[in-house]
């Protein structure tokens, strides 16, 4: 807790012209002089001379904190970099640049200087915030540095080699008896490297040999991850090899368990299973690998093969994932011990559509197989959209140059078998005519790729929130990230997916994805060893501290943590796992007993700041008051930008930035309302399927808690509308001031908070 604070109030950028900064300095001295041995005003605080003076003051007076009342912390951060706790009070953007003179005019006529009142309250809030802050002193842990790679296919092998190449030991787990995965069954690969024009060798043998020959990699075949207990840096992976289980100390995990061919029954509408010579691309690949392309009906080399990529007939009923797939005995039900709840199987016909890039490329490749094996053969490719984005266009072009490959857009309406085992493919809207019939010896239908996580937990976490990634349903089973900008971020710290379990992708893309995931795993271990958080609060040294004496085992923190950081014991006492934690403070917001705090962010701190808000006894004299708790990642920058655009907003609101709306504790709202504050606005990120919350669930959870708050307010006779949450994006700098205005209008209409004056 800061005890010797230097307070500096800048007069630059029109501040001194608009605000009585000497008056503010006097009020700080008056109220908190004991804590603030240095209180100064300054013409230009960011000037090199002033910054040097602050540094000298810190030394001379042994200050343990500085409170800089000037511009937004989003600017001049490099100038105001000191070795002590630093609080930036944003009186330029949030007061001077956004001051609504018009609304303040009646008050000004009465001699009430709303702008100075506001700047003064923010300054005092900054000071008390520092008195409730201390420098976090994280434990530095001695952690496991070994990286666990799940899956010994192309992606897993690549990831293992990439991690080993920066000095990490790797344990690689492969279920099958051999390394190599799906690539082992491939005859050849689509292009893996520039110039992306030619079918090439998969290179899987070399990759397997490299892994086998790497002393840093322990490759366990015929093995399975039974459980992954603990936390990043401190995992214990129980791995079963040939019936015997061993424990391995693991730091971070790369999930590269890949994909499974989609159940062929999804292709039944196109004749698979009923027309003899309709095969899947997976079956065709196996034939090529074996050396002979043969029609199932007579074992003869086909003269013409249609590769049908338009699978609209199979997508006609896109909903309803198969309920029965888990029970389907076609796949050996490994690890399918009867758990508490059946695993939500997400395999559906959608996976056929999601695989479109791969199925298009595979058709081009396999057309080449036919041409290679049968020089007079004719390959026909019927597509809706040739899904070969990017540089693979070059591969498509190369196929077009082969006179034995015929390509057409077309909508396939039906397939029928002729008496001699040939197939007629009926196409509409083709480039060759409105309705055409293609006669061929064989039809190859695409094989959809289904991520392993669509069928089973795969990572088998021993977490209170369950063994699997929690958001698989959002991504139809893929272990994907919902962040466009941060493709490796999921709700499970230290576990990074790569390859086709992550997203449908080519092997060329998987090579990059494997390297990326390997870096994230390395980075996670490195961050833990330095005692700092990983994304998005990278480098943050704070962590939640639990005062268990007052814990009532209500389990809210363990249930609500978006990252599953908390387990619990038999009694329900939470067991924190700091290395799983992302420091959002959702647990702190959840706790009704307020037992969770951070050194530099806590319930008492924000509560004390709220108490610094002055509430005029009467709305008519000095206006109403509204507290706005704003997400510091999106709403706060948006307000900054609104101020940059000189957009004004009500002088009766006070902002307090929060790490995430998830960290908002209901007591803050209750305190504000019982203090006579007329309303509370919560500004946070969008939630729902396309959530923008950087902590995934924060704004959604806050909204849920708000419903409870509304109930409590109603019981007390306070209109629940006085507390409301708004979903705002960082670029809504034009909308937010308007939101504030309409909220203020509502408050005006409702009149004063009934608790005012109590």
């Amino acid at each position, binding site marked *: 807790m800061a005890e010797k604070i230097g307070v500096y109030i800048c007069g630059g950028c029109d501040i001194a012209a608009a605000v009585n900064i000497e008056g503010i300095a006097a009020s700080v001295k008056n109220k908190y002089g004991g804590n603030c041995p240095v209180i100064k005003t300054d013409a230009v605080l960011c000037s090199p001379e002033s910054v040097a003076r602050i540094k000298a003051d810190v030394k001379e007076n042994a200050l343990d904190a500085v409170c800089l009342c000037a511009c937004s912390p989003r600017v001049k951060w490099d100038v105001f970099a000191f070795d002590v706790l630093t609080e930036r009070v944003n009186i330029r953007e949030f007061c001077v640049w956004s001051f609504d003179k018009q609304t303040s005019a009646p008050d000004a006529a009465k001699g009430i200087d709303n702008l100075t009142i506001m700047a003064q309250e923010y300054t005092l809030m900054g000071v008390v915030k520092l008195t409730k802050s201390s420098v976090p002193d994280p434990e530095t842990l001695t952690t496991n540095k070994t990286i666990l790679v799940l899956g010994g296919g192309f992606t897993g092998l690549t990831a293992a080699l990439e991690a080993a190449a920066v000095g990490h030991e790797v344990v690689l787990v492969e279920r099958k008896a051999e390394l190599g995965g799906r690539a082992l069954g491939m005859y050849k690969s689509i292009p893996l490297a*520039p110039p992306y024009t030619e079918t090439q060798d998969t290179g899987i043998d070399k990759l397997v040999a490299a892994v086998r020959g790497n002393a840093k990699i322990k490759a366990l075949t015929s093995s399975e991850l039974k459980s992954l207990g603990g936390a990043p840096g401190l995992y214990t992976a129980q791995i079963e090899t040939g019936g015997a289980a061993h424990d391995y100390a693991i730091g971070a995990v790369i999930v590269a368990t890949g994909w499974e061919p989609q159940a062929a029954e999804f292709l039944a509408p196109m004749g698979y299973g009923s027309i003899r010579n309709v095969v899947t691309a997976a079956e065709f690949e196996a034939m090529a690998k074996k050396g002979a392309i043969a029609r199932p009906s007579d074992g003869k080399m086909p003269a013409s093969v249609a590769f049908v990529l338009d699978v609209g007939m199979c997508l006609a009923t896109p909903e309803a994932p198969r309920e029965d797939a888990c029970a389907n005995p076609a796949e050996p039900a490994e690890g399918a011990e009867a758990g508490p709840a059946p695993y939500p199987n997400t395999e559906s016909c959608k996976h056929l559509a999601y695989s479109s890039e791969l199925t298009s490329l595979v058709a081009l490749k396999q057309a080449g197989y036919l041409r290679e094996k049968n020089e007079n053969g004719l390959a026909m490719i019927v597509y809706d959209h040739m899904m070969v*984005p990017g540089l693979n266009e070059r591969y498509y072009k190369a196929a077009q140059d082969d006179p034995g490959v015929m390509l057409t857009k077309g909508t396939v309406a039906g397939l029928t078998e002729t008496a001699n085992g040939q197939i007629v493919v009926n196409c509409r809207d083709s480039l060759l005519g409105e309705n055409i019939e293609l006669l061929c010896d064989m039809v190859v239908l695409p094989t959809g790729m289904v991520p392993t996580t669509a069928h089973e937990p795969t990572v088998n976490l021993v977490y209170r929130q369950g063994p699997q990634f929690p958001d698989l349903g959002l991504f139809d089973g893929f272990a994907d990230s919902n962040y*466009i900008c941060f493709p490796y971020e999921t709700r499970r710290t230290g576990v990074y997916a790569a390859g086709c379990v992550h997203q449908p992708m080519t092997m060329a893309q998987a090579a990059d994805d494997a390297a990326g995931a390997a*870096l994230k795993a390395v980075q996670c271990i490195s961050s833990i060893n330095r005692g700092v958080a990983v994304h998005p609060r990278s*480098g943050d040294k704070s962590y939640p501290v639990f005062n268990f004496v007052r814990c009532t085992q209500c389990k809210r923190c363990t249930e609500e943590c978006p990252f599953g950081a908390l387990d619990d014991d038999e009694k329900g006492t939470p067991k924190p796992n700091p290395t799983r934690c992302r420091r959002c403070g959702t647990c702190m917001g959840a706790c009704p007993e307020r037992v969770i705090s951070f050194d530099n962010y806590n319930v008492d701190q924000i509560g004390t700041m709220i108490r610094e808000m002055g509430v005029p006894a009467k709305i008519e004299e000095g206006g109403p008051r509204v507290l706005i708790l704003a997400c510091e990642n999106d709403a706060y920058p948006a307000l900054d930008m609104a101020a940059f655009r000189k957009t004004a907003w009500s002088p009766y609101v006070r902002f307090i930035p929060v790490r995430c709306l998830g960290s908002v504790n209901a007591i803050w709202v209750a305190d504000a309302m019982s203090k006579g504050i007329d309303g509370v606005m919560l500004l946070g990120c969008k939630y729902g399927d396309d959530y923008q919350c950087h902590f995934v669930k924060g704004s959604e959870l806050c909204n849920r808690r708000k419903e409870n708050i509304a109930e409590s307010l109603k019981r007390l006779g306070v209109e629940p509308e006085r507390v409301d949450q708004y979903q705002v994006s960082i670029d809504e700098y034009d909308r937010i001031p308007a939101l504030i205005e309409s909220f203020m209008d509502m408050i005006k209409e409702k009149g004063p908070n009934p608790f005012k004056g109590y």
Partner: protein
Amino acid sequence: MANNSILVVGGGFSGITSALEAAEVGYEVFIVEKNPYLGGRVAQLNQYFPKLCPPSCGLEIQFQRIRNNPKVNYFTQAEVTRVTGAPGDYEVTVKLSPRHVNEKCTACGACAEAATTELPCEFDLGLGMRKAAYRPNIFAFPMRYVLTKEACGKDELAKIKASCVYGAIDLDDAPREIKLNVGAVVWATGWKPYDMQRLENLGAGKIGNVISNMQMERLAAPNGPTGGKILRPSDAAEPKRVAFVQCAGSRDENHLNFCSYICCMASLKQATYIRERYPKAQVTIYYIDLRTPGRYDNFMKKVTADENLHLVKGKVAAIVEHAATGDAVVTVENAVTGIKSDERFDLVVLATGMQPSLAGATVAGLHIDEDGFVTSAPGTGMVASGCAKLPLDVMKSAQTATAAALKAIQTVAGR
């Protein structure tokens, strides 16, 4: 001298990502960016597909990471002019162009008010004007003004200088050169929109109401020249009939001999911009193939369910201006029906492709293919990140950028 720091050429999304991912393992990184701000192409976008979320949301997190990490160094208005040496030991020459505004700038805006000269705004791709003293954009990082000194006369410069009470205007600022010693170089030089002037049959950039897809992003962006209103440039009218011409330059051996990966999704996204603003507007997309790979299928299905959106498979042969109205007349042959027709639109968006920024460049020690993509083999100390390597969307750029960071670390680790 062996060195374990990493140079990242380009401060767009890929470059920032490569730099941060390496710095957060503890390596010192230097970002060299030619614009006066970081963020690159994505900073100009209104929204990302498929979430329709603002790019500044992710950039803000990246900038926070930069603020909090002393290992990240960056230079703006900077260009790499020379790289010599070998993996583990490169000497890089960086040319710094004068900003004429020094670190004392508080971003108060007085210089912009004092300036009178207006220039076409680069950030808005020429759709709007900016002052000679200007803030590159509302979200600029670093938040510091820039002065285009050569555009102003003596008197104006004197006024601008006098307007700044902080002494931030530096009229003597001159080009400088600095040398950096690094162990590896990440090329994250990104892409530029294919030049419309080269698309002669599509109006060669001379038809007022034929704009590029990047210009459409600026029109839709709240910080754009129209404040997010999509108005056609010739007369600021609200467009009622809008066409998107796919593969404007892409998939064409006379222009870009590859597919630019993002344009189909970008046009579908931009169709939502129009439909959201103008509930009665009709939108037509002319395409060869609608390339919406992977789970983008969901977005494609959602957007194309709109009955005011029309998809026509066909290559646009020509666009001419309708003299009386400023409309654009599009000549197109429907590839399925074979019917050739002329269609009039209020506004036409050319889905111009991505040309690698390095197209036509030569850099010693770096392999660049004939299209301009970096093909250097990993392990050479020179590694490509994002669209310098191949055309990609943002998510996949971030994946390659993270991978590139690891490759760079592998080169410098232990040195």
